[in-house]
């Protein structure tokens, strides 16, 4: 269980680093952010695995599937409608956003990316790699494109997909700004989920939601999963 706590702590620290890297002088340091994202990925992987699992090697070392399959199907099966046991207490809140999010055609593919159990570790890793990489890729991309000021101007290609994603970014940015200090300083009460329809309105209500959510574990789970939509974000170079 301490692995989970450790992993969670590392996840928080990593996200803090990514966030603070946005404003630093000299622009984004690609190397450092890449390393932070790798740590984030490993920690996330450990965190999302069953408590019994020892710290897993990162996705690259896919040679340990034998350790994963037994707990994995449980984790993944449990993920969909009923939350895993540790997150029971806040199951209702987790339920809320998930179906909403899963309504989106794009997201459904992502969060139902629970692959067939035998291939679970590897594919989950692939999916999560995309997920975990996304929030980091976003700041990295920003280095190359005209800087997106929150809220970022939507890229010219049409599609509600982009609007939603930029909205996600905007919301996440604003939420990081508002409730992140709470995340690091005290027992994190939780973080909001990025709204599907984007926009400040949802972001405005979200902090209130975040405050209402009990338990850190539950609320991190959806956040970690909502990193998924960004894996398909358009690179507007």
């Amino acid at each position, binding site marked *: 269980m301490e692995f989970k706590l450790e992993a969670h702590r590392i996840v928080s620290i990593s996200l803090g680093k990514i966030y603070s890297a946005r404003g630093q002088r000299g622009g984004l340091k690609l190397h450092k952010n890449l*390393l932070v994202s790798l740590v984030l990925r490993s920690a996330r992987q450990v965190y999302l695995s069953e408590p019994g699992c020892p710290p897993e090697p990162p996705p690259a070392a896919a040679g340990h599937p034998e350790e994963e399959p037994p707990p994995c199907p449980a984790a993944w099966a449990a993920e969909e409608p009923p939350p895993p046991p540790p997150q029971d207490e806040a199951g209702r809140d987790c339920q809320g956003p998930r179906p909403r999010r899963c309504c989106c055609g794009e997201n459904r593919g992502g969060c139902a990316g629970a692959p067939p159990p035998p291939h679970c570790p590897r594919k989950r890793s692939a999916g999560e790699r995309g997920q975990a990489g996304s929030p980091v890729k976003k700041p*990295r991309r920003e280095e190359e494109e005209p800087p997106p000021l929150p809220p970022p101007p939507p890229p010219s290609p049409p599609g509600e997909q982009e609007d939603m994603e930029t909205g996600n970014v905007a919301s996440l940015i604003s939420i990081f700004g508002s409730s992140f200090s709470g995340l690091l300083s005290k027992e994190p009460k939780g973080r909001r989920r990025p709204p599907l329809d984007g926009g400040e309105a949802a972001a405005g209500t979200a902090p209130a939601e975040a405050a209402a959510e009990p338990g850190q574990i539950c609320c991190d789970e959806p956040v970690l999963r909502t990193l998924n939509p960004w894996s398909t974000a358009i690179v507007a170079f």
Partner: protein
Amino acid sequence: MGAILKPRTLPRLRAAPSRSRPRSRPRSRGSPRHGRSVAALRARLRARAGDGPRLGSAGPREQARPRRAGRHRRLMRERGGPEGSGPGQGAGAALSLPPSLTALSPSAVVARAGGDGGGSSEVQWCFLQVKGAIDEDVAEADIISTVEFNYTGDLLATGDKGGRVVIFQREQETKSRPLCRGEYNVYSTFQSHEPEFDYLKSLEIEEKINKIRWLPQQNAAHFLLSTNDKTIKLWKISERDKRAEGYNLKDEDGRLREPFRVTELRVPTLKPMDLMVEASPRRTFANAHTYHINSISVNSDYATYLSADDLRINLWHLEVTNRSFNIVDIKPTNMEELTEVITAAEFHPHHCNVFVYSSSKGTIRLCDMRSAALCDQHSKFFEEPEDPSSRSFFSEIISSISDVKFSHSGRYMMTRDYLSVKVWDLNMENRPVETYQVHEYLRSKLCSLYENDCIFDKFECCWNGSDSTIMTGSYNNFFRTFERSSRRDTTLEASRESSKPRAILKPRKVCTSGKRKKDEITVDSLDFNKKILHTAWHPMENIIAVAATNNLYLFQEKVN
């Protein structure tokens, strides 16, 4: 850049369109900036002894003056030495040396330190000098970010976060002060890079000097390349000791004369003047890197050099600023798939077609420019299999290579990752031939080091002239030397306490297990803000330069 590259004989390209290359003193090119920074630097470097300005009025024309016979003015004083009185004082050490040392002939000194690498006997280091302010409050701009000796070791260049370059020159030996040979004093100071703003991306470009590389000397002037995150500049440092006088259209004060007042013509004559050292930018190599430049390396053909950023390596010709060839590009089409970045690159010291680059994954690739114009396919791939038992969340970070350096012989290369230094034989790709643990006791503290960002520190490493010993830095102002043949390692500290002239450095030890012996330091009491990232070794002698935040320490081998 789709041009076919001919590595050995680059097409003779036309020189870049001539920009205004003022031959006059820096003053006319905006040297108020130079002057201001020189004066400010000098003020900062002034010792606590508080000697006043040594070089007369600190006007914009003022430049640091080199030491010549008969001129013993110095800009700074070493701390800890006896307080001398006048400019003719010379090194404070001269007063306190025992008579036996004064009888030592200079040739013996050279022979001893002549790079035998401490074959059988261990090298003992003693303090030579320290440069920099003593203040506890260190301005960020004063933090030294790179240190480099030139090819002869007579010049030592340092760059700092404020974009300034300070060059030290080694004292010439004089009969009157035979033991003061080996001291380095300020030769030139100039502002190499300024902070810039990229309007397109709304990003500020830091002026911090990332690397300095000297060019071999081909005439009286010295040339060096200095780079920040985006732009590389070629600087010429030249001495001027003559001045033209007797212009027809100009007064001695510089005022223009009316042409009709000129009644007779005369030929201006050259008159000697006080020696001045000028630094002028000769080339600016800009706009070739999207990401942050981390390395530059001059080729052994002395005509080309490479610059590496996180994802690309470019090849330049020193004469051409408006074009560079891209020779390595590891940027994936989809940035989502990015897994590694380039962390360092260097040309082979003898084969001008070979270079290596290291990655954040702990691998090194050796490329041969003869094989293709774009060297994405490596010729050799160096990677040590990972030890699965030491896996942790931070395994990737600590395996990221922060520096790669070829040995002088060209047979080996050395890589530095967070906890160790590895020596590789170029002929063996599957594992290094030697691995030295720099500070293995930090392995259990990786999580805290991740929190305070220390795990991202990029330590450099260096070889001595004979490739027998390697050196790298650590925390708490410790630096470590490893003698390769005897496997002897020494931990030394760059501190004010040991800054007495000729004081022998006492080896330090970090206590790793329970009981702390006397003079040992526990891991928890290490100061992680005092880190030695940049070190340099004289190419021929046992003199080392160690940058500790804003101070530059110079140590010399002890002579008996």
